[in-house]
């Protein structure tokens, strides 16, 4: 019984770790612009993150090595440093986006100055991290993030033409650059690199070994699949409500409106609460990812489980990254805009972390009998090809569509 609960909590944490401001912004806008047409891109991205996270979790459980340990080992100092700098830049931008999102939600709930909430949100995250142990942080945010299920209830309540919804799962392409930009955005939002940096370091934090491989498989498949379903419902509810009336949901609060339409004020509060915990959890995950990467690359002591006294450089760098992100948001750039840049730039940096993991997960000298099997190997290489194509097209599409502005 206890192990069932533990596995369920792990799955919920994975689910919570999946949805973040990038998914919410891109899926809501994709629904408003293209109705259900981009549902297939969510599925593509979800399978991608499941494949990648399962590999990272397996490598961490079998060899005790998180992502940037592997990167330094396989790519050496020079290329590894490039990967570190790119990942850190993208991760800090992501922290800024999540922090800004958190402040927007707080502002909607308690009307006051935006910049005040940015500072309060950052302080709140420091307090939460100081008070809760590692597993507690993941589970609290994961469980509270379940409020996002209100979007699933909203989709059922709206009763869209399910045949039309099903049609959205068939990949379709158009020569519209904006459509292609959203394909990249929806896919990349599901495959944010900080998620695997955090996931694999979390496996080490929780002391995983080979006995946790089943848990790893379940988290990566069931947890991320549920996350993917929620991301799909965000497209469905937005497509149903906003597409016919031509609303362009450019701010985060609009994403919660479909729930209000279906269930009144309770729906709205659940939706805002769900978004708040998803975004807040992601702010912690992405800021931790930035300092995990730095500490692992340089060989410093790291981990929430070590505590600030035993890992002072790790803790200090975490505070520094959070502070930098806070400055970015306070500079006045729209958090939704920061989100779009962080997601698109993330897909450019992605091959640099994906490739070394693919290499080591298939290396029998490190992984023994747990090295990639035929299916993992095939999926791993297929996704590597997809990621390469998307990372080449991401920046031109961002520029040509003026950041999704058309």
């Amino acid at each position, binding site marked *: 019984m206890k192990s069932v609960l533990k596995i369920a909590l792990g799955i919920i944490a994975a689910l919570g770790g999946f949805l973040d401001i990038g998914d919410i912004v891109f899926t809501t806008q994709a629904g408003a612009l293209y109705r259900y047409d981009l549902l297939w891109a969510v599925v593509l991205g979800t399978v991608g993150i499941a494949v990648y996270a399962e590999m990272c979790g397996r490598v961490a459980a079998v*060899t*005790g*090595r998180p992502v940037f*340990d592997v990167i*330094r*080992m396989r790519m*050496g*100092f*020079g290329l*590894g*440093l490039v990967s570190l700098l790119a990942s850190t830049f993208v991760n800090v931008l992501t922290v800024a986006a999540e922090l800004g999102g958190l402040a927007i939600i707080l502002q909607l709930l308690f009307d006051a100055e935006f910049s005040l909430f940015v500072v309060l949100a950052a302080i709140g995250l420091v307090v939460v991290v100081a008070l809760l142990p590692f597993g507690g942080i993941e589970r609290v945010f994961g469980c509270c993030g379940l409020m996002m299920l209100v979007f699933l209830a909203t989709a059922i309540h709206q009763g869209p033409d399910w045949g039309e919804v099903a049609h959205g799962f068939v990949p379709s392409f158009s020569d519209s650059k904006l459509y292609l930009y959203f394909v990249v955005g929806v896919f990349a939002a599901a495959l944010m690199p900080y998620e695997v940096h955090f996931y694999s370091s979390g496996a080490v934090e929780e002391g995983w070994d080979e006995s946790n491989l089943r848990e790893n498989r379940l988290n990566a498949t069931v947890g991320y699949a549920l996350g993917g379903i929620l991301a799909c419902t965000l497209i469905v509810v937005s497509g149903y409500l906003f597409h016919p009336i031509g609303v362009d949901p450019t701010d985060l609060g609009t994403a919660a409106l479909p729930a209000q339409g279906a269930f009144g004020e309770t729906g709205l509060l659940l939706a805002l609460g769900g978004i708040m915990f998803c975004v807040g959890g992601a702010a912690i995950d992405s800021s931790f990812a930035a300092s995990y990467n730095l500490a*692992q690359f*340089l*060989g*410093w*002591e*790291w981990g929430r489980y070590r505590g600030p*006294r*035993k*890992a*002072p*450089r790790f803790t*200090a760098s975490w505070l520094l990254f959070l502070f930098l992100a806070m400055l970015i948001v306070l500079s006045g750039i729209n958090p939704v805009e920061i989100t779009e840049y962080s997601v698109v730039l993330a897909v450019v940096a992605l091959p640099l972390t994906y490739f070394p993991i693919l290499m080591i997960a298939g290396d029998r*000298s490190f992984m023994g009998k747990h090295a990639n099997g035929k299916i993992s190997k095939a999926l791993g290489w297929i996704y590597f090809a997809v990621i390469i194509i998307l990372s080449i097209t991401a920046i031109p599409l961002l520029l040509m569509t003026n950041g999704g502005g058309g």
Partner: protein
Amino acid sequence: MRGEGEILVVHRLLDEQILDSEGKRCGRVDDIEFRGSPPRVAALLVGEGLYPRRLPQWLRGPARKLAGPERWGANVLRVPWEEVDRIGSALHLRGKAEELGLGEGDDPERWMVRRLPWN
């Protein structure tokens, strides 16, 4: 031919995480010192001062200016090969990090502000 006691030095040793006898993470193998003929691993080198020479040639000059020995002092530590206990999922040392001067950046004493009035 691979004889007994030989390992793939670049594959398994260079850039490896170093742990001391208590499992404390205390740096990475930033370079390796060889001696003798045929060359044998004499020591592991650890420290920020080695970073510039790990970069491509055209970046070494600027990197030395940023992080070279003139700036950060003698920031290279030598860990004699005899100190290495075993290589598993990391490189384990026989002794404690402090005895070799490793991992000093994570020394809590350094991070404590002792001069504050309430200390």
